[in-house]
């Protein structure tokens, strides 16, 4: 535990020192080194211990979630550092602090400590979303902060209710009490906690701040937000699911976010907002796996890491494309990408479609390995939809003129995607079965067919405004609390 905490403290300290030294990115490099050393020393995990000792300490655990998220965060930070190294000012120090607080959030096993780290993550991402000062990005950031604060207010109320009834903030102690949700106060508290984490996590109908914030943020920030920051909300949900029996609720939210994000992404014209809606949809896989538990839980962790890698790559390539051409709409980018950018986009698309041999295939294989036919059908439908989204990107893959972007960040992420895929073949059973490959290809072809069918349709989707998003978040929270009360 000391090693992990030392890594976090060093990461945050280097972030602060970064404000003082030139060039600013150097502290980012040192922080990644420190984080990697710390991870290498504490891997493959450590049992839960109380930081500060005794009954009052903050429980810290190095479970598979922490392991996966640490590895993901360090790789993604490295890629972003390579891409954004020329950016001056406070960018790199704030980014280092942001990644450091994500590292802290995922090892925490305490309700209130989670609250503090999640708020820290929100604040720092908020600074970075509006970093370039474009009014659209600033407005997206403000929406993000308002909705995140709504979520965290609900979360704080939940903390109060649960602490008042159970007398502890430690999630493992709550799980050990095994009181379930029979007490209405605890059930309402658990509902508020889950709702708060869902709003923070950007789940569909709860956290509709996500698409504009991820879409309009600067390139490197979008990458970190979609790859790592969203996952802190997911880890919070995973911790809550371990303490309270809320699995069925998470499956329901997962299905909602999977298909809701899909519908919006299918008709979104802005490339980065499109990718952001796809992130909302991809959360569905993770939450369904999380809610089902058992073998699927490992699949959910692997999918969270894989999604971080390929969505990070897609956002990086998309950001490069937008920086190179000055265009944001998918239609006007066709044939204008330089070849490293097009390659990044192609590999990312291949991986997110779940085609072998990349990370998406391995993670999806682990997720669906041990599921009921019903759950498998839902995930299959989601995969077909995801493939239809990928089909929208195919016209972009034809490289155009020579570009100026450096391919460093894209290379790092491509190598990690391939490495993750190979690791999957070595360590996960059953991935080499021809049936799995046929299924993956079939889903991709089905998705392409769906895309051809829907290409001419243009349904009038309701616009998402701040007021609507707030009302939806609160209504969603109410429905969730009601659902958990019924469950208990």
């Amino acid at each position: 535990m000391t090693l992990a905490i030392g890594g976090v403290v060093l990461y945050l300290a280097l972030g602060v020192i970064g404000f003082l030294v030139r060039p600013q990115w150097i502290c980012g490099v040192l922080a990644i080194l420190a984080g990697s050393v710390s991870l290498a020393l504490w891997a493959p995990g450590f049992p839960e211990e109380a930081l500060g000792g005794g009954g009052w300490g903050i429980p810290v655990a190095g479970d598979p979630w922490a392991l996966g998220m640490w590895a993901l965060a360090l790789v993604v930070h490295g890629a972003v550092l390579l891409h954004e190294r020329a950016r001056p000012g406070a960018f790199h120090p704030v980014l280092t602090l942001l990644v450091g607080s994500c590292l802290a959030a995922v090892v925490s096993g305490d309700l209130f400590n989670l609250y503090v780290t999640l708020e820290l993550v929100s604040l720092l991402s908020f600074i970075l979303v509006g970093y370039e000062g474009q009014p659209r990005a600033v407005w997206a950031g403000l929406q993000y902060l308002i909705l995140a604060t709504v979520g965290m207010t609900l979360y704080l109320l939940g903390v109060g209710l649960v602490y008042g009834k159970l007398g502890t903030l430690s999630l493992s102690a709550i799980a050990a009490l095994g009181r379930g949700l029979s007490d209405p106060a605890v059930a309402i508290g658990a509902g508020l906690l889950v709702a708060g984490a869902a709003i923070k996590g950007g789940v569909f109908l709860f956290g509709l701040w996500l698409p504009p914030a991820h879409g309009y943020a600067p390139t490197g920030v979008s990458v970190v937000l979609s790859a790592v920051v969203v996952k802190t909300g997911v880890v919070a949900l995973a911790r809550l699911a371990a303490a309270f029996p809320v699995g069925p609720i998470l499956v329901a939210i997962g299905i909602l976010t999977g298909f809701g994000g899909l519908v919006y992404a299918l008709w979104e014209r802005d490339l980065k907002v499109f990718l952001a809606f796809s992130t909302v949809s991809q959360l569905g896989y993770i939450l369904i796996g999380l809610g089902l538990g058992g073998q699927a839980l490992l699949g959910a962790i692997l999918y969270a890491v894989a999604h971080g890698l390929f969505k990070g790559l897609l956002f990086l390539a998309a950001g490069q494309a937008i920086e190179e051409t000055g265009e944001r709409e998918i239609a006007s980018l066709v044939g204008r990408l330089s070849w490293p950018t097009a390659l990044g986009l192609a590999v990312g698309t291949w991986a997110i479609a779940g085609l072998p041999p990349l990370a998406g295939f391995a993670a999806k294989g682990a997720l669906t390995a041990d599921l009921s036919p019903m759950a498998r059908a839902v995930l299959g439908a989601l995969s077909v939809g995801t493939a239809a989204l990928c089909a929208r990107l195919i016209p972009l893959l034809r490289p155009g003129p020579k570009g100026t972007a450096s391919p460093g960040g894209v290379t790092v992420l491509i190598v990690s995607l391939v490495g993750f895929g190979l690791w999957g073949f070595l360590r996960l059973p059953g991935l080499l079965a021809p049936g799995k490959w046929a299924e993956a290809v079939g889903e991709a072809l089905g998705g392409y067919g769906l895309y051809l069918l829907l290409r001419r349709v243009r349904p009038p989707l309701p616009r998402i405004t701040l007021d609507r998003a707030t009302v939806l978040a609160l209504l969603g929270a109410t429905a969730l609390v009601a659902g958990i009360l019924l469950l208990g």
Partner: protein
Amino acid sequence: MAACALAIALVGLGFWTLIRRRNVIWKLLGLNVAAGGAILFLVAIAHRPGAHPAIVGLGPGPTADPLPHALVLTAIVIHFATLALSLVYVIVLTERRHSQDVHKLEEDR
């Protein structure tokens, strides 16, 4: 019990303001009232009948639960930071878009 009810009323009032008002500053005020309600709720949770505040040196007898008070301190600092940062963004938006009206800010530009 009364404090709990007041806290929940504050949260409701704050969220109502957040949804109904069109001016961003009003929205942020509403949000802060709601956050204040959540903080008051934690303080109310710490209450024990007949207890005095959890301060060393106030003499014998039962004390209020000190843990929620410690949480409240942290939460207040976080809300302060959030509000300050959001107001900075409102300043930026006011300078660039000359408006604090949500409907105007939401027009694509």
